[in-house]
């Protein structure tokens, strides 16, 4: 009989900590994918992460690398500051949809347009999680939240903001992909994309942006399983998954 | 004259609602009232508590660190709030979830098996109303009649008679648990 072998363990880039995320929340899954990536690419000691304001404001309690906490929406500006003074370090921002797609729209658009050589992991859960379930720019049509009690009215609030698709329109080269984490198959694919994003950064190629469709069972008022189903049936058809832009494929003139 | 109570338990046990119903009863008796919630990081999945103050005159400090009465619905709340009851005050304990008493000798303690009572009436979610009935019966911070009238007003929406009936049933069971000494022990 052979010796037992370890097939699953906590990545070295994660701390041994209790989670504060709600049961069934996929923020934790996304954390793990980033930590595995940092491990596999040997980046932990030269990485600086930037936490947003949102449920993942405490990300630094889970990642075992240097971290800064940004003001709401400003993570891409901090990242620019860090990356410009320390170009050989690896810098990533981790941001929610309220943070990135609402209050921080100017910062994210301009960081991407300048082609800053850092990575953004954008967690789109169609709602403001931390403040208790208000409408986000990504809230789905007719989705009820505490600030759209009659459901999102697209005539008043517009359509859900498709950040990855919008960023892909910029002429500046970048890597932009949208993934999801509600099934094992999607998680494996999300891991591939996140790893690719960090690789581009290591090569100094371009700005890299991964939008991850994520669940918020608490504010959606659903069980974790229902939340995954809702993500699949309501979010995925609108927020189309897949590669939006690649530095290997120059834009068509 | 000022009277106070802190209700404490898990989020989701209806603690805040119990407090609000009590405050409404205080108002109905023409008193000054204040309902002060816990709010803050501890709310996510942790303990939730609220304090209700009922007084004859303008209420000063909304912070009451040594409330006259405390009702704890879970064990962490007993550990946190048991030591704070004002000497001579009353500590009510949800004995369905807490199997110990406070070691203090300078307060009175009453056990109410809120979950068991609510479950027996097939209304497991309403442990807060069992607690409210027991609390009002035990302390008469407001009169039972006023509290009943408030329940009527709050739950007696037209076409939802069954809601009122269910609420009344658990509330009265809480009252009986105290008045008939069911499950009530004093160390």
């Amino acid at each position, binding site marked *: 009989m052979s010796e037992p072998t370890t097939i699953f363990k906590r990545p070295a880039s994660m701390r041994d900590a209790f989670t504060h995320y709600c049961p069934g929340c996929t923020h934790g899954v996304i954390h793990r994918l980033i930590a595995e990536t940092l491990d596999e690419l040997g980046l932990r000691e030269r990485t600086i992460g930037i936490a947003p304001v949102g449920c993942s404001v405490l990300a630094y309690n889970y990642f075992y690398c240097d971290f800064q906490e940004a003001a709401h929406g400003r993570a891409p500006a901090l990242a620019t500051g860090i990356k410009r003074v320390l170009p050989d370090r690896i810098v990533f921002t981790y941001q929610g949809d309220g943070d990135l797609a609402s209050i921080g729209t100017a910062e994210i658009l301009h960081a991407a347009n300048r082609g800053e050589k850092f990575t953004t992991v954008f967690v789109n859960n169609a709602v403001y999680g931390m*403040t*208790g379930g208000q409408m986000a720019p990504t809230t789905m049509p007719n989705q009820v939240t505490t*600030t759209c009690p*009659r459901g999102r009215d697209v005539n008043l609030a517009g359509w859900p903001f498709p950040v990855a698709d919008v960023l892909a329109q910029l002429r500046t080269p970048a890597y932009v992909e949208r993934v999801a984490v509600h099934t094992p198959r999607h998680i494996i694919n999300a891991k591939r994309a996140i790893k690719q994003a960090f690789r581009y950064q290591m090569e100094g190629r371009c700005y890299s942006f991964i939008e991850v469709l994520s669940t918020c069972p608490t504010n959606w008022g659903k069980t974790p399983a229902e939340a995954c189903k809702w993500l699949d049936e309501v979010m995925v058809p609108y927020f189309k998954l897949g590669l939006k832009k690649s530095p290997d494929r120059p834009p068509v003139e | 004259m000022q009277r106070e109570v802190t209700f404490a338990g898990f989020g989701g046990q209806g603690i805040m609602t119990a407090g609000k119903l009590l405050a409404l009863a205080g108002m109905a008796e023409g008193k*000054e009232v204040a309902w002060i919630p816990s*709010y*803050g990081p501890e709310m996510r999945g942790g303990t939730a508590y609220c304090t209700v103050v009922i007084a004859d005159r303008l*209420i*000063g400090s909304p*912070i009451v660190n040594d409330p006259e009465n405390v009702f704890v619905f879970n064990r962490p709340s007993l550990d946190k709030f048991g030591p704070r009851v004002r000497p001579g005050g009353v500590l009510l304990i949800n004995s369905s979830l807490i199997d110990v008493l406070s070691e203090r000798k300078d307060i009175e303690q009453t056990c109410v098996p809120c979950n068991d009572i609510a479950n027996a009436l097939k209304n497991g979610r309403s442990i807060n109303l069992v607690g409210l009935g027991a609390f009002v019966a035990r302390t008469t911070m407001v009169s039972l009649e006023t509290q009943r009238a408030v329940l009527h007003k709050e739950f007696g929406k037209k076409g939802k008679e069954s809601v009122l009936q269910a609420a009344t049933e658990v509330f009265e069971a809480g009252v009986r648990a105290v008045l008939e000494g069911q499950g009530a022990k004093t160390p």
Partner: protein
Amino acid sequence: MAKKLMKGNEAIGEAAIVAGAQAYFCYPITPQTEVAEYLAKRMPEVGGVFVQAESELAASQMIFGAAAAGARAFTTSSSPGISLMGEAMSYIAAAELPAVFINIIRCGPGLGGILPSQGDYLQATKGGGHGDYRFLVLAPSTVQETVDLTIEAFRLADKYRNPVLLIGDGLIGQMMEPVDFEGRGAPPTLDTSAWATTGCVGREPHIVKTLFLDPNELERRNRKMRDKYEQMKREEVRFEAYLCDDAPELLVAAYGTTARVVRTAIDRLREDGVKVGMFRPISVFPFPDEPVRQLAFQPSVRSVLVVEMSMGQMLEDVERALQGRRPIHFYGRGGGNVPAPEELVRECRRLLGNGQGGRP
């Protein structure tokens, strides 16, 4: 109408509706998000405008637009969000438009925490945005007073064509108290026809702007605004004196929630015959300079204690008002901690040198 048991935040929303607010622009932030949630339901019911903006920066500039267009507009936020509104505050004051801002203060600086604080006093009364302007600033201490001052804020904003800022702390926003809307109503509608940008049918165009490159023209405006602030100092000073007319030995100065705790502490001290009184500013700009002088300079008053949920901000106004003529002590709590009555009883006794009550 019977009294209603309401959360401070919801009461603010209803008070604004009673005051005839036509447009509300917001961005969620704890501990005041309930105002937005309440008005998301209520504004459409009364035909008003509700917009959740993309940021506080935008929400406050939406007020600028709406106010210039003649609407009764307002916003609510909490500390980090109010910082982002500093820009619009300056512009709206410069353009001499009426608007109401409400800050339900949380502890800081930076992201800080979400618990109550009074750490934005200096920002509220001395600054916020850039330039030579002032807000009229009101500080309620109960939910009812929050309702009344919210309605009053809209009237004063119109009266001075100047923004009015209401400051409460997280506790006032979160707690429930009975409130009465009986007899309260909207202030008279402001005649905006001389300046509002509503389309120039049959008249010369109206321009709302804040750029004045001619120094003399800008200085004239600065002087005119100064005159308004002087008028506020004459006409809008509000305060409460609690148990100050029986020759107290110690005067405690506090506002908002802290003043409630002080009141309880004073009641307890008085039971033991310790004579302490309280000065509670309700308008913090204009600060009640003359009233606090009158109270503090009574011969019986040996010293003044300022109590705040900050490391000492209103303290500077009390120091300024008293001009060194009475010793001033300070007791502050931070981090979201609200002082307990027991602490203040202890502190008052310590200052009076009578640990166990009675005279020293």
